[in-house]
């Protein structure tokens, strides 16, 4: 596989919470306009790793991070977390549109929250563009001013994706985005992720081995806080180098 430019380089990254060593010397690079899946059994630290990338772990008390996470060569661990989060969007396990806001306002909520003023035309453009990218436009265009919480779970999750995309992030983090959805909604989201990778770099945590093989270009396998293997998804799934990876993929554990 031709290695193109990396967007995010994680170098010698360690994370402790109090005396627990959660992530151990992680080194890996995420490439532009690729989907990277992060897999591993429960408790291996995959969510923690992803949540370090937009500094949401800062909220945990007793957390200590060292090493580097270079977003376009700048260590995001040393940047202002507010700025990092505007560049690195995130979608969570459970769909979480703001219940007090309409669909329209949910898409624009990143701008509202940051106090950025937009003209009516700019708003329209962002809303239409983001909802189209999130493959939700056709379903909601006639009810943009209804509350986002009236949508189905899968639609809500696509609304959350639209909300993240509206901020034009460099990277989109997806933390098990389909684990709360039914199979049909899951398929929609998976199709969407494949479409989206031409526009944004995607890093996705998933429990679902099949999902990783279907939609990711690169796969990282984490086990007990260590990065066991990182390679092209094809390679990982056909000829894994480590027995741990192979055992996990053949569902011997995890």
């Amino acid at each position: 596989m031709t290695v193109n430019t990396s967007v995010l380089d994680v170098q010698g990254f360690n994370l402790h919470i109090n005396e627990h060593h959660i992530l151990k010397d992680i080194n890996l690079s995420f490439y532009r306009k690729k989907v990277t899946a992060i897999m591993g059994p429960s408790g291996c630290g995959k969510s923690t790793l992803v949540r370090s990338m937009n500094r949401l772990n800062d909220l945990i008390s007793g957390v200590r991070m060292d090493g580097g996470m270079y977003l376009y060569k700048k260590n995001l661990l040393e940047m202002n977390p507010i700025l990092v989060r505007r560049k690195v969007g995130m979608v969570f396990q459970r769909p979480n549109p703001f219940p007090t806001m309409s669909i329209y306002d949910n898409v624009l909520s990143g701008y509202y929250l940051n106090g950025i003023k937009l003209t009516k035309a700019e708003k329209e453009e962002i809303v239409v563009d983001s909802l189209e990218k999130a493959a939700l436009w056709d379903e909601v265009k006639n009810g943009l001013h209804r509350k986002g919480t009236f949508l189905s779970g899968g639609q809500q999750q696509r609304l959350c994706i639209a909300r993240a995309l509206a901020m034009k992030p460099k990277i989109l983090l997806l933390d098990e985005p389909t684990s709360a959805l039914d199979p049909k909604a899951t398929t929609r989201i998976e199709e969407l992720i494949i479409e989206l990778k031409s526009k944004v770099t995607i890093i996705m945590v998933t429990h679902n081995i099949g999902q990783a093989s279907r939609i990711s270009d690169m796969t990282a396998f984490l086990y007990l806080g260590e990065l066991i293997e990182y390679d092209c998804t094809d390679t990982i799934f056909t000829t894994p180098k480590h027995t741990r990876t192979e055992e996990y993929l053949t569902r011997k554990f995890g």
Partner: protein
Amino acid sequence: MSNGSRPILFVELKERLFKKLLLVSGLLAIGLLLGIFFTLLMESMLSIRETGVSFLYQSIWDPVRETFGAWPFLLGTMITSVLALIISVPFSFALSLFLGEYLKEGAFRSVFNGMLDLLAGIPSIIYGFWGLFVLVPMVRDFENSIGVLAHGVGIFSSSIVLALMIIPYSASISREVISLVPQDLKEAALSLGATPWEVIQKVILPYAKSGMFAGVLMSFGRAISETMAVTMLIGNSNKIPTSLFSPANTLASVIANEFAEASEALYLSSLVELALILFFVTAIFSLLGRYIIKKWMPVQ
């Protein structure tokens, strides 16, 4: 197995008895409420028949001439309670946001929370004493300095002490309401680049505002019915208050002040009618608060 052979009939009987017991205690509570209501109603019948609706707007309360109007006390109650609310709301909201959002863990938080609960548990007579010995002299000096008649006791002093008394109560209600805001939503806002203040302003407050408003109403119900501390501080005057510094009486304080000396039937009955009004007003605010929390809190 002795357990396995226990007759199912016996278990069922126990289950049914337990349910009955719960039902009885529930009915007892309702019975108590209705009992109080009808007692008040019956005892105030004489006054209701004698004075009629004018009881509510008649501005003279003169037991000697047997003229009974509740207006000075209604006014006194509303002014002290509203003033207390105005003083307390900024503090209790700030306190609840501080405890709910900024000080999320650690020893300090437990100390703060513990003190808040302790404050809520202090008997109101102690607040009254503190008010008399510490606050009233200060208020008197203040009144002297701005050139109003210096009573010290009166609406102003009562409202300050009332505010202190309801802060722990309303802060703990809004703290609970704020803690109902899903962590999901806060994280979503943070992940979009919001600062903690922006999260409070644009996610937490819109979500929690109806609950916080309901908390204010419930605190208002509390302030209206507070008796002991207000009786000590309000100055026991049955005239219509003319300023925030006037001595006055609230519904509760006039009952406490005069109940022991009410010897004539109509006098006593009029005091009971005041109690009936108080009963209604507090019930309305408490019910309204609960209704708003139930009805308007957004659901996820």
